[in-house]
């Protein structure tokens, strides 16, 4: 026989998970500064990607400082134009906090694609690394699933000249180095971009 619920006299004070209504929350009356809301064209531009990035960065900035009124205003502005829907998954994914290496690897183990994300090889696959053991490059430990926008950042970083490397691209700089050296370099890139803890 199921136990009877306690009477009001015998009931313990409500704890976590009780059904009492929550304390009223002070409404966030701070008006967001319109300068902080991205300016989005009313008519769909040829490329929606840059605007998705701009909205994602603005949202991330507002959330980072706990300015929910601004975050809501940015989301509403993005929704209002109607043409940014193809970037919604990318925007949402880009709001992910940094994850551990283990979490990023586990995400990549999930079968099938996930919208807003791409799998990234920490040691790059491709001709430039043809001298390395390909089974290491394709091993689960070398593949992480990261937000699409962040993946574009990583790809762009590896392909563009860098003054630290005497004007070489990181891809050129890493050519000829061991798997382990490239792997450690790649982890630092993920960490510094705020993708990995």
């Amino acid at each position, binding site marked *: 026989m199921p136990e009877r619920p306690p009477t009001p006299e015998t009931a313990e004070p409500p704890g976590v998970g009780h059904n009492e209504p929550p304390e009223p929350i002070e409404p966030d009356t701070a008006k967001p500064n319109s300068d902080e809301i991205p300016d989005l064209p009313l008519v769909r531009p040829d*490329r929606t*990607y*840059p605007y998705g*990035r*701009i909205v994602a*960065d603005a949202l*991330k*900035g507002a959330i*980072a400082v706990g300015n929910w009124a601004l975050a809501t205003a940015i989301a509403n502005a993005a929704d209002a134009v109607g043409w940014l829907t193809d970037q919604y998954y990318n925007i949402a994914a880009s709001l992910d906090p*940094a994850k551990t290496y283990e979490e990023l690897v586990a995400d990549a183990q999930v079968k099938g694609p996930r919208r807003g994300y791409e799998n990234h090889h920490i040691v790059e696959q491709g001709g430039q690394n043809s001298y390395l053991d390909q089974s290491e490059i394709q091993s689960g430990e070398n593949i992480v699933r990261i937000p699409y926008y962040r993946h*574009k*950042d990583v*790809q*762009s*970083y590896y*392909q*563009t*000249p*860098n*003054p*630290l490397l005497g*004007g070489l691209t990181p891809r050129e700089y890493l050519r000829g180095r061991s798997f382990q050296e490239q792997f450690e370099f790649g982890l*630092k*890139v993920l960490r*510094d*971009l*705020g*993708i990995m803890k």
Partner: protein
Amino acid sequence: MTKPKLDDFSNEQLVQEFIRLSLKQFETEYEEDGVEDYTRLYHAIQAVAEALRARSGTARRALIPVLRHPNGRVRINAIHQLLAVAPEQANAALIELAQGPPGRERLDARQTLRFLAEGLYRPT
């Protein structure tokens, strides 16, 4: 119309050109395929920096005020030109950028600090 030569620019004009190109380079970070434009702008920025370097030893210091520019790409580009000639100011700006929000500029700043600490990068 013929494009003016960088040699004909005043120091201040070179600084303004440096900022303009750096801001355009920042914009390419928001492009889905901005690698080619980023690279082209990298070389254009290097050319402006070289024009300053070719002048008196102090010409490059005209970039010092750029360390306070609101855009992180502009700042990191200036930092690389100033580490050798204004190390204190450039280092302070570098540390601030390395502690900033995640992104390409923070990556470049942190990597610069690491390369400096490990002796892999000697600014000239």
